C-alpha cells in the first residue's frame, strides 16, 4: 500500500458508490492505475455487492405478485369486519381487564368492600324469616321498628331501649 492510499481511502467508497465529484473521481482513478491494493479493495466491494444483490434480484424475478394482492385485500376486509367488535370490546374494556392482571385484585377488593358495606347498611333489617319491615322510626328517646310476619299475619312493633333491655310488644 502506498502512502497516497491514505488520502484516497476516504474517497474509495464514495467512488464505488458514484458519490464523488468529477475532481475526486479523476484523483481516485489516477491513483487506482498505480495501486493494486486499492484496486483489490474496490474489487472486494464489488464482490460483496454481487453476493448481497444477486440472490435478491433472482428471487424477485421469480415472484408473481397478483395472488399476494388478493391476500392483502382479503386481510384488509377481514380486519374491517373485525373493527366493530374490536371497538365494542375496547368500549366494554373487557380485554384489558383480563390482560392487565392488576385489575383482578382491584375487582376482588371492590367486591369484598361492597359485601362489607352491604352488611353494615342492612344490619338493622330483621333476621326473622318471612318478615318484612313496614316502617322504622328514629327518635331521641326510643327507636321503633314495625314489621309484619307474613305467615302468622302478625304485626310486630319493636321498641329499641338500651341494648341489654330491649322490650317487645305486640
Amino acid at each position, binding site marked *: 500500500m502506498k502512502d497516497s492510499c491514505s488520502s484516497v481511502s476516504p474517497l474509495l467508497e464514495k467512488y464505488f*458508490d458514484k458519490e464523488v465529484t468529477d475532481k475526486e473521481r479523476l484523483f481516485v482513478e489516477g491513483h487506482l492505475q498505480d495501486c493494486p491494493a486499492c*484496486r483489490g479493495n474496490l474489487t472486494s466491494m464489488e*464482490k460483496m455487492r454481487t*453476493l448481497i444483490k444477486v440472490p435478491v434480484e433472482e*428471487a424477485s*424475478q421469480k415472484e408473481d*405478485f397478483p395472488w399476494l394482492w388478493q391476500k392483502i*385485500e382479503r386481510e384488509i376486509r377481514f380486519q374491517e369486519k373485525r373493527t366493530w367488535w374490536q371497538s365494542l370490546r375496547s368500549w366494554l374494556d373487557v380485554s384489558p381487564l383480563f390482560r392487565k392482571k392488576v385489575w383482578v385484585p382491584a375487582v376482588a377488593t371492590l367486591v369484598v368492600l361492597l359485601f362489607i358495606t352491604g352488611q353494615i347498611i342492612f344490619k338493622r333489617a330483621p333476621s326473622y324469616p318471612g318478615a318484612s319491615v313496614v316502617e322504622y322510626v328514629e327518635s331521641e328517646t326510643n327507636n321503633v321498628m314495625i314489621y309484619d310476619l307474613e305467615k302468622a299475619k302478625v304485626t310486630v312493633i319493636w321498641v329499641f331501649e338500651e341494648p341489654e333491655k330491649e322490650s317487645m310488644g305486640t
Partner: protein
Amino acid sequence: MNPEETDLISRCQQGDQEALKGIFEKYQKKVYRIAYGVVRQREEALDIVQEVFIKLFRSIKNFKGRSQFYTYLYRMTMNTAIDHARKTGKQSMSSLDQEGSFQPSDEAEKGPERILLHKELEERVKRAMGQLPAEQRAALVYREVEGLSYQEMAEAMGCSIGTVMSRLHYGRKRMQELLKDYVGLHGQSRSSSNFRKGEKEG
C-alpha cells in the same frame, strides 16, 4: 412525486382500496427486494410485503408529503423487516435445507454442485447479514440492493449523510471480515491476487 402518485396517495388516504392497489403495483417489487434483502427468505419476505401494505393502508393518513413517498414506504418496509428478523431470529439459526431461501434463476443450466454451492454461499451471506447491527444491515440493503443515493438513504433512515456513510463503511468492513473466504480479507488478499491474475491473463 408525480401527479398520478399524489392522486393515488390522496385517494388511499380516504380509504380507497383501488388506490392502494395502484401503489402496490408500483412498489411491490421494491418492497419485496428490501424485505428479502433483510430476511433473505422467500416466505418471510412475502409476509413482510403483505404486512407493509396493510400497515400502509392504516397509516397513510399520517403521511404529510414532507418527504418522498418512496422513502416513507422504504422506511416502513425496513422497520417491519428488521422487526421480523428480530422476532424469528432466523438469521442466526438458518438451515441449509430451508426451502425457498435461495432460488437459482435457471436450475436446468446449473448443475447440482453449483446449486449447492450457491445455497451454501447464500446461507453464509444470510448469517453474516444477521450478525450486523440493524442500522448497518439497513444501509447495505438500501445501497447494494436498491442502489439508493446517500441522500435518499439519509431520508429513508432519518439521519445525516455522514451517518449513512459511516454505517455503510462499518457494515461493509464487517461483511468483508465475515466473508473473507469469498471476497478477500479487507479486500486485499484474494481479491487483489485475483485482479493481478486477471491482468496477466488479460
